[in-house]
């Protein structure tokens, strides 16, 4: 173990963690307004990515067009999930929404294998340059783009929430949905917009992940749901800052685990972490209050 290894792992983890952070931001927005778990979040992203890669394979679409297809695809599939799994059920029927979103997960995977039957599909790479050398450390340029995109989107979401009228409405719905309705906010419309926005953000994350891998399988759906979920729980439910911190931390921990304990241990870290969190620290890093509040509301309703 050397200082260079530690630094390189941390750097690699930070870059991969950026994609987890982006996934978690979308996840936490959906959880915040709905107070229900959307298991179809990852598969929604997968559907967007598959539409993008289908455009790439069959039409030879350039990378930028693929990005647009992925974002719009994920947003529309997100709308579909919201309509089918969330809008019809009230907050009182959390299990119904969750189980319904599981059903759509299966449906979206089936649809994806019909669209592109082979297991592995090519995805247009983001930047095919040589890694940058910073002293003894190596840094992939496409990873740098991923980190920059994450910070940009996190900044934009923070601005939206803090400074705009829609942001005020979203926070009001997260905070106290009944009061939001009473002051005249169209709660269902805000929920739908947030859901679509979060799915689109997930689409960006999915695009970046697939582009840095240069290939994609339908497993990216499950992968995105689980990584996003763990990163969200780590940071604390319903907090954008927490989601970013949780995602970056998860990435760094995984990178170290892979280096010191072996690649087969990497995913166990996420699950082990989720278990420890739920057992001992259910509020997450920054969301203790958020969780208390959600539970308090749950008791009231």
């Amino acid at each position, binding site marked *: 173990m050397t200082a260079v290894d530690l630094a390189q792992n941390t750097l690699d983890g930070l870059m991969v963690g950026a994609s987890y952070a982006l996934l978690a931001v979308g996840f936490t927005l959906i959880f915040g307004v709905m107070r229900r778990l959307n298991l179809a979040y990852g598969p929604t992203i997968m559907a967007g990515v598959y539409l993008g890669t289908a455009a790439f394979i069959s039409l030879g679409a350039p990378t930028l067009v693929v990005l647009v297809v992925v974002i719009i695809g994920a947003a529309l599939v997100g709308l579909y999930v919201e309509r089918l799994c969330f809008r019809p059920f009230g907050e009182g029927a959390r299990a119904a929404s969750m189980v319904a979103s599981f059903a759509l997960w299966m449906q979206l995977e089936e649809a994806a294998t019909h669209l592109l039957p082979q297991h592995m599909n090519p995805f247009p790479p983001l930047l095919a340059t040589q890694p940058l050398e910073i002293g003894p450390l190596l840094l992939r340029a496409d990873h740098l783009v991923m980190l920059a995109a994450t910070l940009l989107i996190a900044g934009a979401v923070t601005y939206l929430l803090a400074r705009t*009228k829609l942001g*005020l*409405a979203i*926070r*009001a719905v*997260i*905070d*106290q949905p*009944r*009061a*939001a*309705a*009473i*002051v*005249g*906010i*169209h709660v269902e419309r805000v929920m739908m917009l947030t859901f679509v926005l979060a799915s689109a953000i997930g689409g960006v994350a999915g695009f970046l992940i697939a582009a840095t891998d240069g290939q994609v399988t339908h497993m990216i759906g499950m992968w995105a749901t689980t990584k996003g979920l763990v990163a969200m729980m780590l940071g604390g439910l319903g907090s954008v800052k927490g989601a970013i911190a949780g995602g970056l931390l998860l990435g760094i921990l995984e990178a170290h685990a892979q280096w010191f304990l072996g690649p087969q241990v990497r995913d166990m870290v996420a699950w082990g972490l989720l278990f420890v969190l739920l057992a001992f620290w259910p509020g997450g890093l920054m969301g203790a*209050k958020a969780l208390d*509040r959600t539970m308090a509301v749950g008791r009231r309703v």
Partner: protein
Amino acid sequence: MLDIQDIVTAYGKIEALKGVSLAAAEGRITCLLGPNGAGKTTLMYSIAGVLKPRRGTIKLAGADITGQSPASIVARGLALVPENRLVFPQMSVAENLEAGAYQRRDSAEVAADIERMYARFPRLKERHTQLAGTLSGGEQQMLAVARALMSRPRILLMDEPSLGLAPLIVEEIFRIVGELNKDGVTIFLVEQNVHMALKVAHHFYLMEQGRVTFSGEPGKLAEDEVIQRAYLGTSRKTG
């Protein structure tokens, strides 16, 4: 101003309101008294559009608003100060007020109205950057009233504004209710504090088990009888 005819609202098979008719006259303070479980809060939420009545009509200034969304009812000039205040706990006092003006587009006037609220409720000005969840119960009640006023309502519905507050604060709340009414706001008030309610009300109703059982001016019924019926209900079985 507000005219309610034969409203039935149910939770599943259980009818919480079994045909309620009442009215709140323009420029007056109308009070609704009754024991817990009489359906008072259900009625308030039915009027505000949060709950959908199964039957009956609700008219606001002559227009039928039955079954409309809360947002369109707010747009027609009705604001509700809900039971338990329901401030936005993780938002600042100022943001709570902004949320109250959510439907308004005149941002300069909204800013002026926020200043007016601070003038009326100096405690809110002192705490305008504080999260609403950290305010005391009385301050939260002031904030809930101010938030409702931010939509510039023609009629203000207040659901048990004195709930859980110290007597001095209750006096303050009722002083504000009187002031608002003098400024021309029609008020429809649900209360458990019979004494204070009868002091400010121009007209009052008694509600028991989902029905209106008395309507009249304060003084038409002895206060202790009102108290007995408002707290216990006449049809309560003893023993």
